[in-house]
């Protein structure tokens, strides 16, 4: 089996069997991180560039660790220390990096569609590490893996994604991912954070927190993305927290073995109360652990096979 594509740009274009392949491969990779010597020679001599135009701790570190555990050489470029500050365009930066013959470029950018644009210029695989409010495919894959591990399957489960849906690439990738994998997805948040027409992606939308919580097997809390909100979308953090923050009182309406996810970074006391974030239902740190395995699987499946045919569709 192989992925039917050169790049990983989003979950939207993946077929269910490709998602399943990524997840089963990631399950096998988890074992490598449990070893005393956490390294396999699989991608020896390959070079992976992490090109990050936005702040990141988890995702960047996770991609870097994944590359290193497979013996690839990982190079991190963050915009603040690059020639971007000297006025170089994204395309020029990418073409120059490609001239150094990397085997894969992982990119995060605040503009939706950046990875797709780069994938047209670059012969090497491009992995989307989050683009604007569009997609964050590796996050959705690690969320799927985390839920699948706990519940055995994602078929028929109910998941509610709660928070700033409008600005969330995590929400979009997860709506695609979980619906493709047979789950029932509900998105919830204040009306200002629910994009009109979101139901077209195959999910239900509600402004009622209680409705989102009741009956759900999984609750995914999202961070308020103040950096993407041109104007504030709610009157005050306190009000948001009171209405849509997950705390002990609201959790009483939930199933008793509900699972709680959060892509991080968490804002304690805003969208999730500290006792819940650290509580027994929280899988937040399992998500982080699974993130490394998922990214190893992405590299394995994108870089593992022969390179023939990759030149097609490349316009320099």
């Amino acid at each position, binding site marked *: *089996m*192989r992925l039917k594509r050169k790049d990983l740009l989003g979950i939207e274009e993946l077929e269910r069997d490709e998602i399943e392949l990524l997840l089963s491969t990631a399950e096998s990779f988890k074992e490598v991180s449990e*070893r005393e*010597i956490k390294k396999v020679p699989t991608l020896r001599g390959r070079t992976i560039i992490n090109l990050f135009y936005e702040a990141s701790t988890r995702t960047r570190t996770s991609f870097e660790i994944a590359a290193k555990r497979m013996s690839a050489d990982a190079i991190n470029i963050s915009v603040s220390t690059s020639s971007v500050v000297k006025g170089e365009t994204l395309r020029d930066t990418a073409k120059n990096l490609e001239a150094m013959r990397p085997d894969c470029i992982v990119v995060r950018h605040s503009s939706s569609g950046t990875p797709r644009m780069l994938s047209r210029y670059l012969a090497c695989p491009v992995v989307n590490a989050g683009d604007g409010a569009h997609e964050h495919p590796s996050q959705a894959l690690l969320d799927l893996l985390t839920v699948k591990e706990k519940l055995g399957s994602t078929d028929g489960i109910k998941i509610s994604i709660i928070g700033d849906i409008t600005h969330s690439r995590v929400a979009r990738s997860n709506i695609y991912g979980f619906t493709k994998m047979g789950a029932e997805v509900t998105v919830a948040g204040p009306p200002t954070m629910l994009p009109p027409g979101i139901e077209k992606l195959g999910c239900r939308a509600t402004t009622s927190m209680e409705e989102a919580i009741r009956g759900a097997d999984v609750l995914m809390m999202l961070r308020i993305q103040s950096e993407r909100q041109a104007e504030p979308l709610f009157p005050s953090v306190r009000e948001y927290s009171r209405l849509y923050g997950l705390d002990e009182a609201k959790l009483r309406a939930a199933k008793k073995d509900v699972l709680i996810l959060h892509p991080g970074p968490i804002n304690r006391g805003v969208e999730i109360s500290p006792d819940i974030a650290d509580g027994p239902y929280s899988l937040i740190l399992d998500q982080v652990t699974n993130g490394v395995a998922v990214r190893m699987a992405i590299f394995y499946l994108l870089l593992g*096979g*022969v390179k023939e045919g990759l030149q097609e569709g490349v316009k320099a």
Partner: protein
Amino acid sequence: MKKVVLDDKAIDRALARIAHEIIERNKGTEKLVILGIPTRGYHLALRLQNKIEEIEGVHLPTGAVDATLYRDDLGIKKDQPSLKKMDIPISIDGKKIIMVDDVLFTGRTIRAAMNALMDFGRPLAIQLAVLVDRGHRELPIKADYVGKNIPTSMKEGVKVHLFETDGINEVVVEPAQEAKQG
């Protein structure tokens, strides 16, 4: 036209003999650990574990060593081989490892599996048990215990079918098909 070279009974007898040989050669079962190469090598490892328990009354630690991540053909094959399970039940430091696979062919899988094992520790020794040795080695690797030597041409395929994975116990030789990885 496929030819059955080992049937259910013959496979069972071969494994029983290998179990005896392992015990004889190692003068008992001390320090032995059985590790099969998934998928079928792992099931053969479990069968050997049972046979040895029947003979000596000792339940040997048994697991799986997946060689996929250590293969030398990952950039050559069109499809990436799917990962199998790695299950090393105890520390292998100072242990005698009985590595088990279904078919020994080029020797490249065994090379990869040995590299994988070395990442988990320093075994005292590694011995190799295979159900079928079909020849055509490309590396200086030799089995210590062989169920049956089956001389083949490169064009033939050797398939091991086990009840656990295929619903039947048999080894067949199929003419002129793509050579199986070994």
